[in-house]
């Protein structure tokens, strides 16, 4: 976990997520809080995927988003957040949280060839 306080809106929501191997695996699309009126609130999970912000968009916009990026949502427990800086880093790989499924489905449609490495 990070040291110090985290501002949920400016430092967490809409921030890039990377996994243990530094691979991009989504954006913090929303934050799950637990607690009720008169009680303390705690962050229990980050929510990843366009399904997480369905309530924040007009219906037409959500349809457009679903067309491009789907409408799935994945819940990542707050305990799995390892570090927060300009990105949110998770403790495990994207596959462990189910964050790599869409990429895997897309990958199966592409040939595994191509891409010359530039000389270092």
């Amino acid at each position, binding site marked *: 976990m990070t040291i110090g306080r985290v501002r949920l809106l400016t430092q967490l929501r*809409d*921030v*890039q*997520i990377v996994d243990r191997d530094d*691979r*991009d*695996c*989504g*954006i913090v699309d929303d934050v799950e809080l637990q607690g009720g009126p008169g009680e303390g609130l705690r962050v229990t999970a980050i929510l*990843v995927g*366009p399904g997480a*912000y369905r309530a*924040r*968009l007009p219906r037409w*916009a959500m349809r*457009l*988003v679903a067309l*491009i*990026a789907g409408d799935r949502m994945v819940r990542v427990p707050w305990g799995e957040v390892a570090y927060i800086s*300009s*990105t949110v880093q998770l403790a495990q790989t994207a596959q462990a949280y189910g964050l790599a499924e*869409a*990429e895997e489905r*897309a*990958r199966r*449609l*592409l*040939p*595994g*060839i*191509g*891409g*010359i*490495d*530039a000389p270092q």
Partner: protein
Amino acid sequence: MKITELTLGILTAVGGFVDVSELVFMAQAGSRFQYALVWVIVVATVGMMVFGEMSGRVAAIAKQPVFNMMRHRLGLNLGLVTLIASLISNTITCAAEIGGVGIVLHLLTGFGLVPMAIAATFVFVATIWLLPFKWIERTYGLLGLFMVVFAVALVAIEPPWGEIVKGLVPQVPAGLSTTELLTYGYFAVAIVSAVMFPYESYFYSSGAIEEKWSEKDLGLNRLTTTVGFGLGSLLGIAILASSAQLFGPQGISPELPGTTALEAAIPFGRVGLLLALLGMLFAIAGAAIETCLSNAYSISQFFGWRWGRHLKPHQAPRFTFAWLAVFAIALAIVLTGIEPVALAEYAVVASILVLPLTYLPILLLAGDRSYMREHANGRIAKTLGWAYYALIVVAALGALPLYLLTEGGKL
């Protein structure tokens, strides 16, 4: 900083500065208003330097490309509006560039425009699929240096240099009718838009991430954006000035993209024409690739997908599908038969409308010490940044009315 790396970076920026919109608008601006819009090119170029440098700096220090910042800074709703608007404007621009490449290949070879546009698109796909990022950028940028023939041609026709220098002074020509005044205003806005196209910032910033820029690359960033863009703008000024000298007196306001190549044919004959067409080909082709990739970067960064040509295509599959889809849609637009010049005009208007939303997050993040530490905007960058931002907002507000009132500068 390696000298070779710096030189190649600057030359790439020079060769990649001009695209089909600049070719069209610079030539028309020169023939309509002689040298009175030279100062607008300079002002717009300085704006591009300011925001280009900020984009590169943010990428190097905060390790954030533009569209990650966009959503984070503007929020989901405004970020989504910006994404949709920039996808539309960049796709129209990509279509204009593909159409432009088709026309130039047609003029070079005699083969039909449609087969040439299709063939070119396949070459672009192969380029992006096979080559690493640096080679993609360098190949077209360096081959675009054939465009230097336009600068040499200007010298050869012995223009009135004093008049060109006078054009550097901000001015509105005297004695214009109301319609001419509005048309002058339209061309000023169009030049600002064509020079400061949002796709250039997206591509430059994402490219810096692709090349893993860090603090040690800040000098390279500063020199590439100032010297590279500055020298590139000289090509734009050369096109405008040659048009003023050669086309204006003959009542030509270039309507055909190929007409601009005559600026080199008149002094140098067939060799000049060939060099001009080759320069236009690679410059416009580079722009087609940049606009396509910038859309793929935007979508991927907005949704947090894996992205970049530092990965093999199957390692970033959704990013790969994104850029393939952009080429397919852009080619489909070309195949509807809309003239590439018309597409370039639509692209310029659409892009200036998006510019304020594009540059605001860059400006805010480049000044944010929590991300940029000691590399946050200093007083000069802050002043210039906000001054240019105000200019962009004014231009964006005036763009559509001026386009409609002047029929796209035709009146």
